[in-house]
């Protein structure tokens, strides 16, 4: 059964490849992805490590249980402990990660990502090229999102407690795609925006950590924002999370020049019903 799946994906892949070769914009991006392939391969081989991948720490099931409970409590106690949210995701996400990985394998672009293992880092982004892209293009909007919300793609913690090398990459990819999701959904990084993205992610990925954040995040919202969440933002996020294609299967690094509306349509995501203003806008 697996061989036939492979053959069909190869067929789809060659078809897509032909389609892509006809579109000139991807040729420009190819040099970025080639650079990433190089950097990702060297990144994994230079340091010595015990475990399945650099940074991997072996944990028994009991340890995972204590980690899950402990990190959940710690994250509730101190919402600034983003590392605890990450650990919770790793300790509880095994089944969801398998599901995501299989979805990616069944998609030709997702399969390419699993093979090439791109990483989104500030060092791998060609910032000068991205700033020169037109407004409304995905790359330009992503840069704008990073600047407006004062975030960097390099702040994602490494995966440590996932006991499979490929699944660890899927987890890492999910973390790095999170900011891109913010851009796609048009949500800022304030509490309301984060909760909306969490609801989308919970519906999309099925990761228990997203469900945890989706349920407990609203507890910290003001009443007016809660109303906004439950009336329009929330249902929109859930609905789109369910119907959208797998967001991890998009090779975003090759799509910077693509228009954001186009990308949304491809992924089957409706534009946001409300514009959520970011609180911290830089006035420089």
């Amino acid at each position: 059964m697996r061989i036939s799946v492979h053959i069909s994906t190869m067929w789809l892949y060659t078809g897509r490849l032909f389609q892509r070769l006809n579109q000139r914009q991807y040729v420009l991006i190819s040099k970025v992805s080639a650079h990433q392939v190089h950097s990702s391969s060297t990144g994994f081989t230079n340091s010595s490590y015990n475990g399945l991948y650099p940074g991997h720490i072996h944990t028994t099931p009991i340890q995972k249980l204590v980690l899950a409970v402990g990190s959940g409590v710690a994250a509730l106690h101190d919402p600034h402990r983003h590392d605890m949210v990450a650990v919770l995701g790793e300790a509880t996400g095994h089944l969801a990660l398998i599901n995501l990985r299989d979805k990616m394998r069944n998609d030709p672009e997702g399969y390419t990502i699993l093979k090439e293992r791109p990483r989104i880092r500030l060092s791998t982004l060609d910032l000068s090229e991205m700033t020169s892209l037109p407004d409304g293009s995905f790359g330009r909007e992503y840069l704008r999102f990073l600047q407006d919300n004062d975030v960097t793609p390099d702040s994602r913690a490494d995966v440590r407690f996932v006991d499979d090398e490929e699944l660890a990459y899927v987890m890492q990819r999910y973390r790095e795609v999170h900011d891109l999701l913010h851009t796609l959904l048009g949500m800022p990084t304030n509490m309301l925006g984060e909760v909306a993205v969490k609801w989308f992610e919970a519906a999309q990925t099925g990761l228990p950590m997203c469900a945890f954040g989706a349920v407990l995040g609203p507890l910290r919202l003001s009443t007016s924002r809660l109303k906004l969440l439950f009336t329009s933002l929330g249902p929109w996020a859930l609905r789109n999370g369910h119907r959208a294609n797998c967001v991890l299967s998009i090779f975003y690094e090759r799509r910077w020049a693509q228009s954001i509306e186009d990308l949304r349509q491809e992924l089957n995501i409706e534009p946001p019903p409300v514009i959520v203003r970011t609180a911290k806008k830089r006035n420089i």
Partner: protein
Amino acid sequence: MAAPTRLLLRRVIRLSHRCNNVPAAGVSARSRCCWGPSTCRCFSDVAGDRSTHFGFETVPETEKAERVYKVFKNVAQKYDTMNDVMSLGIHRLWKDMLLHVMHPQPGAQLLDVAGGTGDISFRFLEYVHSQQERQKRRMARSVQTPSSQDISNNYSTEHEDTPQESRAVVCDINKEMLNVGRKRADSMGISAGLSWVVGNAEELPFDDDQFDIYTIAFGIRNVTHIDQALQEALRVLKPGGRFMCLEFSKVTNPVLARMYDTYSFQMIPVLGEVIAGDWKSYQYLVESIRKFPEQEEFKHMIEDAGFYCVKYHNFTGGVVALHSGFKL
């Protein structure tokens, strides 16, 4: 290159002194034996390139101090909380026992090496203060009905022999730990008789014969050259001074040992991750306990350094041992 050669010279001189002084019988045989390997150690030091353990990892000796520094820099903020959680508060009892065995008298000068967040020093100052109060009360009770002659005597001697104030010096190689300790002292309102010094246990920044009591609680296993730390302890103590070391040791009971090992390796790094956000540092701390010599061996090391009447007490079935020796 000046510093290492100086250190080497000092060690050779110290070794020759030690083996020239005829110690008490029983220790003499051992000191003669240690002359051999010690010189070998000196020479291979000149050659450089020796490795030691960092937990279960092997690292070059020069790297160990730096890595230990990083560990304690990372855990400094949550150090006290983690101690309470990991030992379920029992570490407080161990430290109280140390003070009880120490039984310091008012006027004692304490050097608390690897004192970090100040647990031992705070307890020391509280102990001597309460001792002082008790002495004052006893004196007051004994002179409830003084004669007029006694009263005039008391007034005249009041300003003369003020006893030397007890002093505690907290010495640690890590500035972050000292900062945390200083903040704690401020919040507890303890300041009189307390000082904070940055220093390396292997090369203390103090003159000879300065202190009555030298303590090192849960610190000596992190020192790269334990024998050097012991020799420095001997140097800075006054004759008659006491060396006291509280450290994790070998659990004698095999059932308890299994439970302790499981708890150490399974739970403690997880707790470190959840509370301090640092799995690796607590993995190191747990592994370093296993690499530290057990009770009898450490007792011999202390005797080798030149201490007398070396004894040890086991607490909690050998989880922690208190070693004590005197400089005579």
